[in-house]
């Protein structure tokens, strides 16, 4: 039997794609400018089928790439000649336990669906990537996704309690946050599909806050806005979210159907959300208002009603979409700097953009120092694509020089491999490879991602494969 035939026997004829025209959809993810064609694509319906697929791929020794919704922005879900293992059909919310405030879900559940399902219990799933209406919880786990409200509530890592994982060799392991032994769940979160496939997740649900207030402050200088961010954090106020948008972003939003009524003549706006117990909230709102004005805000709008708050958020949530209208392609960049470095980084980014003749639009999680300098461009214009590339390399280097990192939430994938050795020593990268080899000694799961292969010591296939094989035999009672 061919591999495709074996897979069809598991998932049914219509859920294996082989023809070039059908695979076209899966050539890219959210990152523009990259196209990689999988050898075939397979879409299991449930965890049992997914496991059978993983085991079939293991016995065939075939590389594969897990994929959720394909919204990733670093090329993580691209499969270059490998089998694409699509998980979006595994979208069952298995159980919500309002008492323990946890949910058990399949990996293909769309982020926002969980929050919708938890609403009736007064709960929500806190990590809220801007792509939350499309991205999957499995993809979130694999990328350790963040979002605006992660400033106060923490990123995916802080909300995952357990994961049932199919290791690349077909062994199933249940990783729990409170396991004795090493923090393998912590190691798995953010492993970008390279350590195996999550078949089931248990995540925390967070009680909805008693009260929420959203503020929009507008500034005539981006530097003032950046200083305000540090001042709010330093004052001991921990907003639920603290987001910044610059003039270019505001302009794009206001020219789109997502217009939120942002002041288009502002150099930057801050969107600040304060939430929690009603008691003490006004003090924080007043504190934010005062700090914004003391740092030169022209105006501070305060929204307390859900509709008014939603309107203020709409522009932020749809900012990428609005920017997408400016040009055929959009690079959504992601880096983090220490918070006190924001003002100088924003100035450097603007200078780098000007020097390369490209328009940088900044819209980002300012409270965390998590920058998203985005550039709308035309990827088919060779000269423009080169200038965008140069600008991005310079911006990443500036972030590294400022003591920051090359990705705060979008992952390394393919796109950021080139920056890894500017950030980490060869020994550190080798250590990362050693960890990967524990989970995937054959190096078949999402190969070629995250750590440049030249930093990975040559593996000794014989002993390691033997170990992997033994592990699988143990776990399956030798049934395979």
């Amino acid at each position: 039997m061919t591999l495709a035939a074996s897979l069809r026997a598991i998932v049914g004829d219509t859920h294996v794609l082989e023809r070039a025209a059908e695979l076209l959809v899966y050539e890219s993810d959210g990152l523009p400018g990259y196209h990689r064609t999988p050898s075939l694509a397979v879409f299991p319906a449930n965890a049992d089928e997914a496991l059978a697929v993983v085991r079939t791929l293991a016995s065939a020794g075939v590389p594969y790439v897990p994929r959720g919704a394909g919204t990733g922005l670093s090329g993580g879900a691209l499969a270059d000649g490998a089998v694409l293992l699509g998980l979006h059909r595994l979208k069952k919310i298995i159980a919500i336990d309002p008492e323990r405030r946890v949910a058990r879900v399949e990996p293909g559940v769309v982020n926002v669906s969980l929050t919708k399902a938890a609403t009736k219990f007064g709960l929500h799933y806190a990590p809220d990537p801007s792509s939350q209406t499309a991205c999957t919880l499995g993809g979130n786990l694999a990328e350790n996704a963040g979002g605006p409200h992660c400033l106060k509530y923490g990123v995916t890592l802080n909300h995952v309690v357990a994961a049932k994982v199919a290791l690349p060799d077909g062994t199933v392991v249940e990783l729990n946050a409170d396991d004795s032994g090493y923090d393998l769940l912590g190691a798995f979160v953010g492993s970008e599909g390279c350590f195996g496939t999550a078949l089931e997740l248990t995540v925390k649900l967070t009680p909805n806050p008693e009260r929420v207030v959203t503020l929009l402050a507008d500034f005539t200088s981006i530097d003032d806005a950046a200083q305000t961010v540090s001042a709010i954090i330093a004052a001991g106020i921990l907003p639920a979210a603290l987001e910044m948008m610059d003039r270019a972003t505001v302009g794009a939003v206001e020219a789109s159907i997502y217009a939120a009524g942002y002041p288009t003549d502002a150099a930057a706006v801050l969107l600040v959300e304060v939430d929690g117990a009603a008691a003490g909230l006004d003090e924080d709102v007043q504190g934010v208002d005062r700090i914004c004005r003391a740092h030169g805000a022209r105006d501070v709008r305060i929204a307390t009603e859900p509709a008014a708050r939603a309107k203020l958020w709409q522009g932020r949530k749809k900012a990428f979409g609005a920017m997408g209208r400016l040009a055929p392609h959009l690079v959504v960049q992601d880096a983090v700097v220490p918070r006190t470095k924001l003002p100088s980084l924003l100035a450097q980014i603007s200078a780098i953009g000007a020097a390369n003749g490209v328009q940088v639009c900044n819209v980002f999680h300012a409270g965390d120092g998590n920058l998203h300098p985005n550039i709308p461009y035309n990827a088919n214009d060779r000269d423009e694509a080169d200038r965008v590339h140069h600008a991005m390399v310079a911006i990443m280097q500036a972030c590294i020089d400022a003591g920051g990192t090359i990705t705060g939430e979008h992952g390394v994938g393919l796109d950021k491999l080139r920056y890894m050795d500017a950030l980490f020593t060869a020994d550190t990268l080798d250590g990362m490879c050693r960890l990967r080899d524990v989970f995937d000694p054959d190096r078949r799961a999402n190969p070629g991602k995250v750590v440049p292969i030249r930093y990975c010591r040559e593996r000794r296939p014989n002993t390691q494969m033997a170990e992997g094989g033994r592990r699988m035999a143990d776990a399956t009672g030798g049934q395979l």
Partner: protein
Amino acid sequence: MTLRPASVAELASVITDAAAARRGLRLIARGTWLDGGAPVSADAEPLYLDAFDGIIEYEPGDLTITVGAAMSVAELDAATAQHGQWCPLAPWGGDDGSVGATIATATAGPLAHALGLPRDLVLGVECVDGTGKTLRPGGKVVKNVAGFDLVRLMTGSWGSLAAITRVSLRLRARPAVDETWLVVTDAAADLCQRLRRSVTPPIACEVVTRGTLGANSPDGLLVRLAGNAAYVAAARDAVHGAGDAQRADASAWTPVRTAARPQATRAMLDPAVRALNDGVKHAFDPSGILNPGIMG
């Protein structure tokens, strides 16, 4: 000859030599909890890490700090307090132990429920693994997904994979108001659950038994309320509504944190997870020389 390396390079050569000779090493920072709840083989040679001390980088506006692993939790607390900040580690056992050991053992404390476990607070480490390689995963920024997460791997690895020499941590601003109350009750565990789920949860609450807080102190719940004045006022009302509440001094937490705690029984791992654990140990300490025996 005492093994007391003065630099990361010296530490790396000590470990490399020990690995070549397959000589066990017992990592010691401040030596306050040497058995760490699990015995290290008796013949392991002490390796003192106290040279890796002090503040390496602290820019208060970033709300992050990088310190030498042997710095005590008390010193970290004092240094950050000067800027109205703190790292809410407050581990069980008290503040004499080192920051490095707190991370290495992932020792939480009464604040963890509200303010995060060690794995949530650590941003980056520098460490020398059992092959003598120096690793610097993570960083000093508060969000970071660059590369596979060796930081989480080292946190809670009990010094069995690497000797940690530096730790970068997330800080918070100290709350404007911070009060401790003792609620006298014999239904303390229930009250604790109830307060944690209230709209004004405390940052810590722990059941205390008679005598824990001094001769004749009653059974009850020790509660720590923190936030701005209006929040704490509301939280205080909730606590008063729950029973006979007496104001206590912040020092009441010391006996609670240092009291002997029942050792968590280590659950048996599933064989496949056990195999992954063995694989990790083998990948970072193939000669089995770092804190031999400590992970069981």
